[in-house]
């Protein structure tokens, strides 16, 4: 799988969140995703980035453009050193929140992407990798 381009962005402030959305949009456009797919990917990125800021205490985002034969994909990796997610299954459930949100972010992001995987250890942080393929 060829990584065509990698970008690293901080995800700490409100402004970072806006920039993250822009960077992800650019990647999705460059990879030829349809408008609806671009919107889904950027929205998922926004949800995950906000979680990184609010729940993870800030972190980083890696945006990768992948190509593989005729297929292409965008891969988003969010890393933080926050409190971690104790129960991943529960966190993914719609409506589950430990904050003031609606608890739709994580489950919604999973629906909007082709694949989303979470690795987290309490007190050590959270890494979320989300990928969306373009057929």
């Amino acid at each position, binding site marked *: *799988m*060829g990584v065509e381009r990698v970008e690293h962005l901080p995800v700490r402030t409100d402004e970072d969140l806006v920039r993250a959305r822009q960077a992800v949009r650019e990647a999705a456009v460059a990879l030829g995703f349809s408008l*609806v797919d671009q919107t889904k990917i950027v929205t998922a990125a926004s949800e995950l980035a906000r979680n990184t800021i609010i729940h993870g205490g800030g972190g980083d985002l890696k945006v990768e453009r992948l190509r593989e*034969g*005729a297929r292409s994909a965008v891969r988003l990796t969010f890393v933080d050193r926050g409190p971690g997610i104790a129960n991943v299954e529960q966190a993914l459930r719609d409506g589950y929140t430990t904050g003031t949100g609606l608890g739709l972010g994580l489950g919604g992001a999973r629906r909007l992407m082709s694949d989303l995987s979470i690795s987290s250890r309490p007190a050590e942080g959270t890494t979320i990798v989300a990928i969306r393929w373009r057929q």
Partner: protein
Amino acid sequence: MPEAAPTRLPDILGRHQQEILDDWLKLQAETFSRRRDLISDEELKQQSASFLQGLRSAAATDLDPRGPAWQGVRDLLGEISTSRVRQGFSPSETATFVFSLKQPLFARLNRELASDTRALAEETWTATRLLDALGLHTTEVYQRGREQVIVRQQQDLLELSTPVVELWEGVLALPLIGTLDSSRTQVVMESLLQQIVDTKAGVAIIDITGVPTVDTLVAQHLLKTVAAARLMGADCIISGIRPQIAQTIVHLGVDLGDVVTKSSLADALTIALNRAGWVVTRTAPGQAAR
């Protein structure tokens, strides 16, 4: 029977099948380490073993890879080629599956026939010829598969051109005809939503009279479209839900919630016109004359 054992390949393949397979798998793992996400080790191993086995028994009978003795091997490669296309391999990567056997096989021949350079040259040539022909075969299968895909896509495209019609000012109708699969439904629905924006129609009728069956995914797409249209500020009405489909929908446990459904397009149109602010009056023949 053709000339007795014109080649020692089957013999060598037979005696060293396991070692050759192991070497080959190792080589493939190195060459294709980047493709691990597309195919499982287990599947690769199984395909490689079957191919080696087929090669051995076919070569024992005949050395013409186009001949009947090779039918089994060709079929196997056909299957492999088709499934790899689906898995996202390029045609040259699939052909490389076959070509990459050369390296471990030649190494083995070298060792076995070290003392007999002439035999070595001959067997190497035979193996090259066979593997090249078989590798090309995978490419041909790929080509044919692609042609089929193109034909199918053309058909789909025709179906997809299902026109969204403006029945009345402010009223769109989308008559769906034929089998709906999830991806077609998605495309059609996206185009309906776009048309709502383009024509500023406040009401859209999705008519499924011509749809034989509806599965859960399609039903969900329909409902999502209705929800999306509402967010945009337009109403959707689903019409032509035949009794069987209504039953299926209930059976599937899909909740139509407060989606407006009508059994006929005519009923739906009446409601739609009403919502769009139209009042349709009929002038009776006698009245008009008066």
